[in-house]
């Protein structure tokens, strides 16, 4: 896949979906054509950039903090222990070490809610498209343009032709497949979302397959991890997302969403499964459906914390 493929694929997808749901189709198509034309310039732009020397980071020179506030271990050795790594302090450092006149004046808004995106912020792509200077480039779009596109995309999962017991039995008889998927999952995905214990989870998986653990929620968590591990085998160009075999994921999603509505059990298999299902949907470029699962997981986690 190269840059041009990505851009063209993206704009074609936008074009086909937008046509069905936005009024004034002809006008929109003209604008999207213009968009696509601009995007097509990107390849030459990137090629040109590739032949020029890389930029320097001027700010690094101006603010020569480097490792000054890290522990000696951090500054001089290889990977430090987590306890030595002051990420929390990164953002809580005294404001304006290098610009004290600012530290006396600047309001640090959201200090108490730094993990939360503010309501009504104006940095979405939709907001950007509403700016006059951008509209002069691409024309008029509604601010929720991308929401309209994403919410109108068809989302259908075929019902698996096996029930859960049959699926688990077939997996128990095909351990190499399970091991390969788990290995791939822990190598590729786990570093980005290190929720599970890499040593203990395979034992848990075995317990589910052997029938020692027979809760549907535990099985769903295993299936969604399996689905993620197998998804990674496919490169972006090898199969279209709609052609991927989502059997394991579909089974897991059905269980997780129904249990989310019905279950009041206070363990972490359900919210973990929902989070990993959301990650799976992110791999399939389904941000809105992923958000719904995250929302369910959030509710479940709040219930756990409150208890």
């Amino acid at each position: 896949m190269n840059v041009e493929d990505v851009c063209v694929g993206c704009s074609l997808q936008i074009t086909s979906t937008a046509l069905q749901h936005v009024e004034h189709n002809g006008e929109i198509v003209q604008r999207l054509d213009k968009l696509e034309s601009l995007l097509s310039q990107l390849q030459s732009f990137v090629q040109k950039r590739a032949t020029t020397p890389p930029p320097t980071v001027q700010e690094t020179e101006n603010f020569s903090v480097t490792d000054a506030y890290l522990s000696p271990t951090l500054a001089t050795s290889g990977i430090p222990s987590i306890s030595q790594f002051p990420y929390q302090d990164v953002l809580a450092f005294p404001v304006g070490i290098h610009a004290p006149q600012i530290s006396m004046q600047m309001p640090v808004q959201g200090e108490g809610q730094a993990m939360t995106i503010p309501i009504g912020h104006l940095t979405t792509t939709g907001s950007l498209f509403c700016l006059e200077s951008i509209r002069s480039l691409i024309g008029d779009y509604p601010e929720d343009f991308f929401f309209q596109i994403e919410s109108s995309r068809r989302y259908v999962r075929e019902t698996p032709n096996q029930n859960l017991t049959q699926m688990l039995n077939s997996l128990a008889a095909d351990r190499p497949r399970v091991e390969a998927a788990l290995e791939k999952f822990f190598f590729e995905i786990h570093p980005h979302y290190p929720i599970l214990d890499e040593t203990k989870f395979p034992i848990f998986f075995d317990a589910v397959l052997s029938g020692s653990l027979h809760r549907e929620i535990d099985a769903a968590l295993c299936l969604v991890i399996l689905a993620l591990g197998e998804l990674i085998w496919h490169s972006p160009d090898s199969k279209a997302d709609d052609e991927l075999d989502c059997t394991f994921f579909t089974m897991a999603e059905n269980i997780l969403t129904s249990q989310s509505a019905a279950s009041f059990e206070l363990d972490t298999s359900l919210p973990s499964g929902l989070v990993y299902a959301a990650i799976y949907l992110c791999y399939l470029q389904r941000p809105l459906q992923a958000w719904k699962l995250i929302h369910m997981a959030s509710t479940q986690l709040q219930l756990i914390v409150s208890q």
Partner: protein
Amino acid sequence: MLDLLRSGMVSIRVRKVEIHNDTRNSDSLAEFNLPRSGIEIVVEHMDFPSFSQQSEHGGLAFLAICSVRKLLNRIHHTIYATDQRVPIPAAAASPATNTTEYSTQSSGWALDQVAVELAHQLENWLSSIPKPLRPDMNNNQPTHLQQGWLRLRYWSAKHIIYRPFLILVASTNDPQQLPPFYMESSKNCIEACKNYIETAAFVLGHRTQYTWMTIQAYVSLFYVSFERPLT
């Protein structure tokens, strides 16, 4: 027995799941302005999770992503939130700049000072990443996906710090009349956009959970960088 097995075999920490949850959620909330679940109230009062020795490398990268998420949210709050006490560049008070994207509800805090401070915090974030993980920002060719994602977060944050200046310069008839810092900041913004686009080309060559978000930002930054050319 089963309870013991379950609790012993699955070491899933609620805290980790919640932090993941909120980090993941913030990106969708950011783009679609979706309703909140309420989890953020819990997460705000939590420490970052710790990790076992085995997952230390991945854990460090994950913590780096968490911390830059906080910085990105701080940038949103400080520059772009439609809230009170937000900064405003002095030049934005003119009628000619009614197309700005940052909030103009209040005044008193100079945006240029805020931008300098936030840029400083961003550089601190970068320099705090342990050397084995820290990307070389003078080179836009990541060696692996995790490093590519750290780079994208850096360039994305840098671009939104300086974007108001570029919008202002592009919507002003005579940009040369603006303070030199505005022009310099606009160049910084364009440079960040270009670097993001170059890095994204690498990330988009893989199947990742970041694909949609990266393409979305890619489109956005492409148009930002193609605003009126600076002289």
